[in-house]
Structures are given as structure tokens and as C-alpha cells.
């Protein structure tokens, strides 16, 4: 259906388009942000960032809901616990939607509880998947990493919860000094968290794309752009307020990662088409092919990274 030359051309074309899209987005957003800062005041910066984090948390929760529903359905929901991620991620999705619409500052105990529950479920899921692998012959072998319960998948739930938890912390902060989360100024801690999430998710994509033998060159994009975005984000956090160009580049690559997450779903749709029977056989191929809802996790995390930028900018304004 697709020769290797065609796939190479497709990958190159899509990379170019993604770059253009992120550049356009960056241009378009730039003036707005500064104005926001001055006209609406500090509280709104926090709220704005909190909303962005809600959006990220929601996207991640959506990924997990769809993905775990499909994968656990495939596994016949053999164990009752396999319903848990589905329930929690849907809750996280709903609450994130609500949070994003909610114009009020000040945190909300219900949202907070759901987000903390989401983190807990994600951690339990990771432990459960690890335990499952430990039971299989070969233990921590490639075969089990590829095909047994995926170790990385529940972490997306943890990340969704963490983004949400952070958004609640931001809403709580209205005073006129730089708020802190986990001992770090808020911009920095959101930035580091987003970077860690991007790296972890890229690692998982790397593992699964390696399993797919990188048969389509586009499969290299999600293992290279997100780590680059993470690296630039960490550098931005470390470099402090001075380096404008670095910030610009970091935001650009985050935007690239965000659009890439959406394009990734398109590539996965193509992957499904290349399974036997293609989309006509969607009942089987949605399961057998690459997971359609997985790539938007990157978008969610990139949003968190962009929120970190907003907060870092704000920190700069406040810095003496």
C-alpha cells in the first residue's frame, strides 16, 4: 500500500507542515500574552495557567480513558480492577472540563480529591503492571516490555492527576509574590514536571515504536521532538529570566510537540489502515493497530509546558 519511499516523503512533508503550524501559532499568540499580563493582573495569570493545566490534564485523561477502555476490553476485563483506570480517567476528564470552564480562583476540594485519586490509581496501575510482568517467563525481557501489560501506560494517569493537582495549587495562589509548589517557584516546578512527563512519554513511544521497527520514518518524530522540548524547557527553567531566545525556541518546540500529538493520531489512523482489512475491519484493527488515542498525551504535556512558560514569564515580571 505504501512503499518506503512514499513513507519517507510523507514523514518529511508532515514534519515541515508541523513546523509551519507551530510557527504560525507562536506568532499569533505572542502579543496577546503580554497584554493579558498587564490588563488582568496576577490572579488572571494564575487562572490562565491553571486553565491550561486543566486542558492538559483533560487531554491526558482522555488518552487514558480511550486507551485503557480499548486495551482492557481486549483483555476481557478479566480482573475487576481493570475498570478502575477507566472510571478514574473519565472522572478526571469531566472534572478537568469543569475546571477549564470555571472562572473562579480558589481551589475546589472535589476537583482536588479527583486529581489526587487519579494519581493514586495511576501509581497502583504501574505497580500492578509490573507485578504482572514479574509473573511471566522472561521477567523484564523485551518480549514482556513489548507485549505484557505496558509499564508506561498508567503513568499517563499519574501525569493527568499531577497536572490537575498543580492547577488547583495555582488557583489557590492570589497573593503578590511568587507562589511555590514542592518548594520550587511555581513556573519552575510546573516546567520540570512537564519536562519529566514529556521524557517519560517519549520513552514509552520509543519502546512501542521500536517494537514496530520504526517501519514508518515518521515514527521517529515523537521520540525526538518531545525530548528536545523537555530539554529546552529544563534549560529555560535553569537559565532564569535572561535568555529570551531560549524561551522563544522552547515555546516553539513545545508547540510543535502539541500539534504533533494531534497529527500522531492521524498517523495511527494510517497505521490502522495498513492492517489486514484496514478500516473496514475496524473492530479488530482498532485493537491490533497502533493506539489511536495515545499520541494526544503529548499535546496534554506540551500544554503543561506552555503553562510553565506563562508562569515563568510572570515570575520574571515579579522578579526584582
Amino acid at each position, binding site marked *: 500500500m505504501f512503499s518506503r519511499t512514499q513513507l519517507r516523503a510523507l514523514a518529511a512533508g508532515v514534519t515541515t507542515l508541523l513546523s509551519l503550524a507551530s510557527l504560525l501559532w507562536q506568532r499569533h499568540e505572542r502579543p496577546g500574552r503580554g497584554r493579558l499580563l498587564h490588563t488582568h493582573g496576577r490572579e488572571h495569570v494564575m487562572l490562565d495557567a491553571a486553565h491550561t493545566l486543566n486542558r492538559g490534564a483533560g487531554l491526558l485523561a482522555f488518552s487514558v480513558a480511550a486507551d485503557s477502555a480499548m486495551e482492557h476490553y481486549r483483555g476481557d476485563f478479566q480482573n475487576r480492577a481493570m475498570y478502575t483506570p477507566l472510571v478514574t480517567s473519565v472522572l478526571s476528564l469531566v472534572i478537568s472540563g469543569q475546571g477549564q470552564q470555571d472562572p473562579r480562583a480558589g481551589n475546589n476540594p472535589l476537583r482536588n480529591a479527583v486529581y489526587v485519586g487519579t494519581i493514586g490509581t495511576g501509581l497502583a496501575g504501574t505497580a500492578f503492571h509490573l507485578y504482572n510482568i514479574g509473573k511471566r517467563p522472561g521477567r523484564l525481557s523485551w518480549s514482556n516490555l513489548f507485549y505484557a501489560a505496558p509499564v508506561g501506560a498508567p503513568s499517563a494517569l499519574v501525569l493527568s492527576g499531577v497536572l490537575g493537582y498543580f492547577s488547583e495549587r495555582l488557583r489557590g495562589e492570589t497573593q503578590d509574590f511568587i507562589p511555590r509548589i514542592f518548594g520550587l517557584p511555581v513556573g519552575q516546578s510546573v516546567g520540570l514536571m512537564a519536562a519529566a512527563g514529556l521524557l517519560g512519554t517519549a520513552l514509552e513511544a520509543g519502546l512501542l515504536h521500536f517494537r*514496530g521497527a520504526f517501519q514508518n520514518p515518521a515514527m521517529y518524530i515523537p521520540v525526538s521532538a518531545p525530548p528536545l522540548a523537555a530539554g529546552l524547557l529544563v534549560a529555560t527553567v535553569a537559565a532564569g529570566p535572561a535568555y529570551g531566545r531560549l524561551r522563544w525556541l522552547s515555546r516553539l518546540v513545545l508547540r510543535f510537540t502539541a500539534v504533533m500529538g494531534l497529527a500522531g493520531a492521524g498517523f495511527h489512523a494510517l497505521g490502522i489502515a495498513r492492517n489486514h482489512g484496514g478500516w473496514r475491519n475496524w473492530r479488530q484493527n482498532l485493537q491490533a493497530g497502533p493506539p489511536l488515542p495515545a499520541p494526544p498525551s503529548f499535546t496534554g504535556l506540551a500544554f503543561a509546558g506552555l503553562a510553565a512558560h506563562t508562569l515563568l514569564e510572570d515570575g520574571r515580571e515579579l522578579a526584582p
Partner: protein
Amino acid sequence: MSAELYLEALETPRARGGRAPDVFSPTGWVPMREYPLDEPVDFAIVGTGAGGGTLAAKLAEAGFSVVAFDAGAWWRPLSEFASDEEHQQKLFWTDERVCSGDNPLVLGTNNSGKAVGGSTVHYAMVSLRFRPEWFRSRSLLGYGVDWPIDWQDMWHYYREVEQVLGISGPVRYPWGPKRPRYPYRQHELNASALALARACEAQGIDWTSTPLATLSAPRDQAPPCVYRGFCVTGCSTNAKQSVLNTWLPRALKGGAEVRDLAMVGRIETGPDGLASGVHYHRDGSWHFQRARHVVVAGYAIETPRLLLNSACPRYPDGLANSSGLVGKNLMVHSNQAAWGLVDDEIRWYKGPPSLAISEHWNYCDDNKDFFGGYAFMSQGPLPAAWAETQVGNRGLWGQALVDEMEKYNHQVGLKIVGETLPQERNRVSLADERDAYGLPIARVSYSFCDNDLRLINHAMRFLRGGLEGIDAREIWSETEGTAHLMGTARMGDDPRTSVVNADCRSWDIRNLWICDGSVFPTSGGVNPSLTIQAIACRTADRIGDMARRGEL
């Protein structure tokens, strides 16, 4: 579609009028070049399986004019391969043969195919490399004979074939020298394979997922495997990478012509003693294709049969037979199994039959009371094949058979591919009976030697131990059974003790070549198709070199 439509390919030749069936479409065609009969082509190749099909592609791509013949039909897997064990017998070579010896071979399903693409159309896709020492088994291990090819040379060509077939294999292979990464990753293990893994862990030996010629991710026009397990009856998705959907499309693109339903009955030799072309039967009559070179690649029974059937006053004992070895040293692989029952649901029909393997006894020489080695693999016989195993080996019938079949979904099994030694008494010769074309049919005589039996005993003890180690019940041994065919036109360094040289060129007639499983001097404890294809790639490169130097 009616049953007749599914068999249409057997009725009249399809590859003609400048086109051939497109194996990647249910009904389509691809263009094919055609050559006239009366002008000699560079190469006439008899057989389009692992040896012939590979060679046809490589020679055509190197710029030679090539016509390849196959007695079998040109199928389109997507529309003509049924999920029906009985129906798919259409892929097997079931022409009459006379079998004798202490262990008369059962030919057909498990060892020879008749189709464009050869036996690879219904092979189990296990794609293994020889252990390096086997190429010098006489000098290094004390049995059999040495090959005239160096192992490193072969490993170079193994690599080429693995790339072409997109082999899905483990990230790290536990045995032998380090090998380059397989182009595709290993498949998910089914429960049957996990049982092998547990059995190996219980016995304290290594195991791994089997390198297989079926895709674990999409590739060009082929989808990844769907794990429905109909592999040995013909894969209807094209996930299986057979000669039919890898080398032959390349051959056509390179300008080769492939004639289906074309049975070659005789190789003609001219007054100069050289081969001048082949007589073949197609469309109800005999034709003669002139050729500068003739390659025989009909597999280890039909190849010697054709060479013997081509006897003429100048070569009264058959072609390429001055050593008297054509047809001798026929080898098989012993293919015994231990079977058992477990509580867990296994459903071994899911996925390719042999997803896990241990080559431990190919690479470990400790405490062996026999020469050679064996691999063993997890199993997944389809229901009819399993019923046949019960009837054939245990004589179960009626209610007893029904009761046994009830256990099908809980059955596990380990089966060997065991090396057998070359023996001159195991041979292919001509019988008095004639086939539908009026050609003398093959007489195939086969007997295990003591060493072969010691190997089998060792294997059965070990495999039963493995099944006991995973608490299987009702364990029993299948002691009959062979797979694969090799030998009968062995390669070597000395015209007195071999039929062809390392380049597959016959010692006696310099424009007659043999390129298939027949040329193996020893059998090794692994399935042969990867090695056959590697030899064909090497032969094609050597022919190219010789042509450039004017040595053809």
C-alpha cells in the same frame, strides 16, 4: 465464490499474455515480460521455491534474461486461500511417489509443495541460521562432511535474506556469535509459546521467541500478522513473507518470466555435452525452451528425479552424476514431539505455530551420546492435523478420538527439528511406474541410523522432562514424523564426492546448476529455508562475478 473458483488457478496457466497474477490484490495483474522459445535465454530455472524463486529474482535484477518454470499454480493469497485445512491441500506436492526403507517418508503436507513460490507458500516461517561450526562439521565436530562454504560468507547472505523477508526476531539471540538486529521485532508469544518458555526455565536452559518470516508491523503492501494460525495451510493475508510475495514480485520487476503449471520433464543436452534447454509440459502439450544455462531447483526429490530422467547416451546415469551421488544422501529432519495436557486454556491455534524456540541442544555439546543437534519449538496444530496425529500415532478412533479432541484447547507440545546424518543408502531413484506426464516417478528410500535414533531418544527424554516441569498431565511421545528434505545433490570441493561446487555449479556440465535444498552436505538442526535462500543469493552473486570475468 464457488469451490471451483477457488481452484481456478489449477486449470489453465495464468502467467501469459504479458501479465501475471498480482499476489497483493484479490483479482489483479502485474505486467510480465515474455521470452520466445527458440531464442536461448540466459537462465532457465526449474522450480520457483526457496532456491529457484530467489535465484530468479537476483539473476533478473543482475540483468540476465530468466525464465522460471513451476509445475504448480500461481495463487492469489487474498482471494484463494481458504481457512480450511482440507481445501488447502491444493498447495502440496501429492503426485505419486514410492516410499520404502525402515522409516518410509510420508511425503506431501509436511515436506513438499507444488505452487509458484514452492514449499514456502505453506511453510511455518521459522527462519534460523546454521550454527557456524556445522559448515565444518567433519573437521570441528567429527561427523558428516564439511561444506565448501565458509560460515562467515553464509552469515553475510543470511543477513541479506533476513532483510528481504523482514524477519521478525528477538532483540537478542541467546546462541552463537552476535548477529545483527532482525529487521522487525519479535511477535507476541501465545500461551503455547509461554508453555515452552516455562518448560525451558524448569529445565534451566535458554529459550527465545522464534525468528519468523511473518511481519510484526506493516511493510510495503503487506500487513502485519493477524495471528489466526493458518500459516501451514497458506497465509491469506500476505503477512507471511514467502517467495511468492517477496522474491517473485522482484523477479517480475527485474524482467524475469515465470511460467506456472509448467512441468519440466527433461533437460536436453547438446552434442557439446552442455545443457541446451528444457522440455516442459504446459497447456496439454510439450514445449522446448532454449537456454544458455539451466538451473534445477525442484527440491530434494524432484531435482534428482529430473536429473536422472534426463539421462541420454552421453550421460547414461543421468546428468551431473559422474560421482554416482545424484539422489544419494537424502536427509530429513527428525520431527518428534512430546505432548501433554494442562489446566490452563492454551488455544494453541492462535498465531503462528512455533512462536518460541530453544536451540540449546544445537549449541551445547555436553553429555551428548550422539552427533549433531536439535532445536525444539512450541506447537499449534490445527484441529484436523491434530486429529490426524491422534489417529496416526495412537490409533484413536470413534468415541475415544472425540473424547481426546475435547481436550484440544488445553494441549501443549514441544517438537524437535533434529539433525540426521547423511547416508548413501537413503536415496531417490527412479521407479518403473510413470506419472500423468509419462515420466518415471521417484522411489524414495529412507531409514534412520543409530545416531539419528540416539538423538531422538535424547530429545524425547528432555522434552518429556520439560513438560513434567510445567505439571503437564497425560504426556505422550509422538515418535514418528519427519520434516524437510535435503541432500541428493550435495555440494563439495571434490568432483568425486560431490555433485556441485560451492557455487552450485555441477562439476560435470558447466552450464547446469542446482540451487535448492538438494545441495546441503549436512542437515543441521534447524529448518532449511533461510539457508537455501542464502545459498541462492550467494550463487547469484557468484554468477554475476563470473559473468563479469567471462567465466560463464
